[in-house]
């Protein structure tokens, strides 16, 4: 085999490998997180994906949090399929470990910082490229997925100002921190994505800010009153922020009208105390009228052509219902 042939075969093999890697990394119709990482020889070539149930847990590590792992190929490509992901967007963390370290290893800060955060759900098609060797996730660029691009902008903003602050004098650092926090609260206030918004808040000095600027958090909670996202619920519960009431004016008006109607009906048929007269039967009422006019039992018996004993029975019933004892009281009774 000539030297040129050998070179050609090597070129074909290398192109084939590259294509295969791309093919592995990109399956556009399938929900996935894929991308490319630059790793030196000190890193193990396994990438772990952890679910972060709340922003409080961003810097927690346990084996239970790791939900998937994948190999990073020789060219740095990787892919996770997201078929098992929830429908709602959630926070996730990608991390790598140093060779010899346990998979559940979290390194915060310094050149060996080993993780990055992102937002995903079962419909996400996320492609990223991490362009830094040390730390590997320092410069992450996203294609397509605008939410993660925004998310990464917050990360980069915080990192750049924190780095600047770490190198600055105490007084200057104070200005930088104040500026950073103000900017993050603006992002939190204006972001349409609740996770990006919360991420900005959690990267600010939110714990101390809450006590110095509680109005912001009340207004923030009010503005996001329709957000039922679990991450927002956790945030509200942390500061005991009440979930703002919805506008219930219409419901209150309907209830008010209904109550008025009920009150009217009860007034008409329910609560109006029956007088004794209303308890009388039609026959008793006729007899009652005769009694008021001074009729005797015999007059009544003759008028209605009924027996005397029947008249007495009716009169007795009328006395009982009207709670009276004599004919005089019948005459005085106010109907």
């Amino acid at each position, binding site marked *: 085999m000539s030297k040129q042939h050998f070179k050609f075969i090597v070129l074909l093999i290398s192109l084939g490998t590259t294509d295969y890697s791309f093919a592995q990394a990109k399956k556009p119709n399938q929900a996935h997180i894929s991308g490319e990482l630059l790793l030196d020889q000190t890193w193990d070539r396994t990438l772990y994906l952890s679910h972060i149930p709340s922003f409080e847990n961003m*810097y*927690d*590590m*346990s*084996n*239970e949090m790791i939900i998937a792992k994948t190999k990073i190929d020789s060219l740095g490509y990787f892919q996770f399929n997201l078929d098992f992901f929830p429908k709602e967007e959630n926070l996730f963390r990608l991390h790598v470990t140093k060779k010899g*370290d*346990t998979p*559940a*290893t*979290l*390194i*915060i*800060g*310094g050149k*060996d*910082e080993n993780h990055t955060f992102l937002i995903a759900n079962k419909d996400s098609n996320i492609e990223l490229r991490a362009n830094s060797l040390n730390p590997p996730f320092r410069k992450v660029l996203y294609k397509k997925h605008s939410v993660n691009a925004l998310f990464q902008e917050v990360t980069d903003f915080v990192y750049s100002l924190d780095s600047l602050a*770490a*190198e*600055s*004098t*105490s007084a200057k*650092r104070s200005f930088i921190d104040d500026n950073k926090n103000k900017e993050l609260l603006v992002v939190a206030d204006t972001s349409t994505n609740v996770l990006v918004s919360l991420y900005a808040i959690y990267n600010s*000095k939110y*714990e*101390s800010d809450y006590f110095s600027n509680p109005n912001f958090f009340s207004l923030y909670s009010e503005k996001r009153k329709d957000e039922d996202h679990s991450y927002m619920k956790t945030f509200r519960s942390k500061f005991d922020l009440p979930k703002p009431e919805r506008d219930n004016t219409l419901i209150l008006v309907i209830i008010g009208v209904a109550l008025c109607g009920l009150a009217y009906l009860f007034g008409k048929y329910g609560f109006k105390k029956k007088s004794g007269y209303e308890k009388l039967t039609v026959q008793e009422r006729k007899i009652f009228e005769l009694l008021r006019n001074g009729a005797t039992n015999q007059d009544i018996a003759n008028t209605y052509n009924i027996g005397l004993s029947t008249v007495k029975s009716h009169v007795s019933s009328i006395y009982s219902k009207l709670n009276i004892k004599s004919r005089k009281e019948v005459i005085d009774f106010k109907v």
Partner: protein
Amino acid sequence: MKNQIAIFIVSCLFSVLSVQGQDNDFFSSPDSVSRITREIELKDDSKPEEVAIIVGDQDSQLMVQIFSIISKGKLVIELYDPFGTKQGKFSVAAQMSATKKEKVQGSMNKRLRDPKSGDWKIKILPKNVEGSILVEVEVIQ
């Protein structure tokens, strides 16, 4: 062409040396360096502990590195500045059983120039932890 390559190499070297020079300037000839190293072994431990770091007015840099590895329980480590503001936090949790033995590692690196003077604190909050913690602190004047 050769000249261009030479100029390029010299430029690169100059850039590297400049960066190196800046880095060295950051750590340049400190008057004094005080180091604290503490190794803490935890055996089914749930007792909170604090490591105090005293930073004086004249101290120009503070470096804190905390490494932890546990096989059981939950460990929370927090770093506070002298004003009580949390400057960092992480936690690690692991379960150890007859069938499952695992290790979980967590570490934090913090470097600050012109740190606030006063008592910084590393709070160690273990819950039934089997493991170890290594704290390395450098205060440079």
